[in-house]
């Protein structure tokens, strides 16, 4: 595949983001979500043109937009019928809830990693230390890098299973994954 221009990349990103949002139950807001991501890329990151930078950036923006959308939906009472007065004002920084969620995810992740085998733990440690796959291959003394790829893929799947199938639990899922518009409305 030849080198893609920024416009081509954004065009393809739009398709993938829309499909992803639709598959994640965003429903009517999928188009808006996609548009929001692209708007951020266009307005805040016009200098990012490289594929290896633009795609992960889009993933990051997409994640934030989805989290915001979930929080907004929660505030609007679409999941639970609550009084708006009961909600505190939004803090622009990391709120304690997010910090707690992150701590909880880290604890969960550590617990899952502890259940992995020695090889997977070693692989994960090497990756956290910043070693690339070729470096890990040299460190472990394997002749083929495909061996490292295979080991890492198996370890990732095993860790994902231990994490419950998802890396991140959306904050709104705890109280009610089903909107109660009909009840409120």
């Amino acid at each position: 595949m030849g080198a893609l221009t920024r416009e081509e990349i954004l065009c393809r990103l739009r398709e993938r983001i829309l499909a992803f949002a639709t598959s994640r139950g965003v429903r009517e807001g999928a188009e808006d979500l996609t548009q929001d991501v692209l708007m951020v890329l266009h307005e805040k990151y016009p200098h990012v043109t490289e594929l290896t930078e633009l795609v992960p950036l889009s993933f990051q923006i997409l994640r934030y937009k989805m989290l915001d959308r979930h929080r907004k939906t929660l505030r609007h009472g679409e999941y639970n019928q609550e009084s708006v007065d009961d909600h505190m004002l939004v803090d622009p920084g990391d709120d304690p809830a997010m910090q707690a969620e992150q701590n909880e995810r880290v604890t969960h992740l550590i617990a899952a990693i502890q259940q992995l085998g020695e090889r997977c733990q070693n692989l994960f440690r090497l990756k956290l230390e910043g070693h690339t796959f070729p470096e890990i291959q040299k460190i472990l003394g394997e002749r083929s890098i495909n061996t490292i790829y295979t080991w890492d893929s198996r370890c990732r799947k095993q860790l994902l299973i231990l994490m419950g199938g998802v890396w991140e639990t959306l904050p709104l899922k705890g109280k009610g994954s089903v909107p109660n518009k009909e009840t409120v409305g």
Partner: protein
Amino acid sequence: MSKSWEQILGGYATNTLTEEEKRQLFAAALNDQTLFDVLADEEALRALLANPEARQRILDSLQASGNPQGMAAIHSPQLRWFRQPSSLAWAGSIAAMGLALIFGWQMEELWGPVVQEELQAERSLSEDKDTMATIAQSSRMETRKPPIREGQNKPQSKPAPVASMPAQSPVTEPPAIAKASKDRERMDEAPVAGFSKRAFRQMVKKEHLPKAKEPDIQGLESAMDQSFSQEYRLMTPSVGNMEKREEGFQQLPQAQTFADRMHRSDAPSSTGVRDLFFAEKGRQPEGEREAIGNRRASQLFGGMSSEKERVLEKQSLNLEMTQEAVPDDSELPTRGIRYSFVHGTSDGKDDAIDIEHFSGSWANLRLGITSNVTGYLYVLTDLENGKWKLMSPESQTGPRSSDGAINVKAYQPVTFPLNQLTNKFGKPAVSSVTILLSSTPISELGTWLGEERSQDQLTNRLHQPGNQGFWVMDPHPKPETPFRVDIPLGLAQE
């Protein structure tokens, strides 16, 4: 999603993909919705691991839970070498060889002595068989000999330790020496091991004996075991006792002389005169005796240090000198004469004839005389007027002294043509032929040619006629007295 892209997904969350991997992965994600979805889901983990605090916390937990030594061991090149399949194969092979060596060593430790004992028992059994076969052969040869030897052996049934040692024939001596050496080794081992190797070897030997299925040989073997054990006691003293060694050396068997046998037997039978005549052949020359003495010494000194060997060699030489200094009448040779009348055949061979039944011309006959000792031979004829005439031999085989004596060697035949004694009719012109055998030339020949002398000699001599001649022996030889034999012609016997 291609499986190849799925394999490098794990590097996205930890941000450890290379630029090339990232480019290929993201390009693929733009074309593959599934890969894009997975990457989008991985974003949560990536964001979590992007937090330095969370990252360090996970690392600490990993290092705390993991075995640092194990981690270091994985990084060590030695263990890395062990993880390679070829290295594992080598290690496995070496381990298998090591196990085999250990197993073999343990087997050798446990069963090695038993196997060696069995092998030694088998070798001993085979040697015994050889020895028994040799003994059986020699015993068969002995049984073929005239009974005079049996008569000689009977008085030796209860011999003194020294004299009881049978004179080993050259055929049987080497196995006996080997057997004695082997028995000496067994005797040396016995006091050390108690019920040990020898007892076990005997047990193994007994187990092997029925397998031989040779009853005759087994009987001989038992007899030989007793003989060898006795022989061992006499010939091989213990290693640690030098005095017993010296005694053992002094008890070495000496070859029996003919006089020994004669003194032990009151009177040999007449059928053994021929054996007595040839018994002098059994006397070993001085060099041979010395060689046998050396063999005995080496047999005795086997396994001893060179210093002790030299000491005992010196002692043995002194002992031999002492033995030589002691005069012994038994060393005198037993003199004997064999004479026969022979007739030349057409093919040039000599044919012994029975002179008693001979009716032909004596001029064609010859008188063959053989002495069993070296000496001076006088063959004379009585001219019946107080005169004696020396007969001339057919061929001069040896030096002749000034007085006409023929210097003969032991068992060297001398023939005399009888035509010098016959008349024109071919009949003997003299009544007898007198033979004088002396170890030294006789200065006064006439003093030994009287009738009284001859009668005196006749009373003491042993005579045996035979188809091949006549044997006359002097059982009690005196060095100063010549041995006289009268051959009456006409009767040709006494």
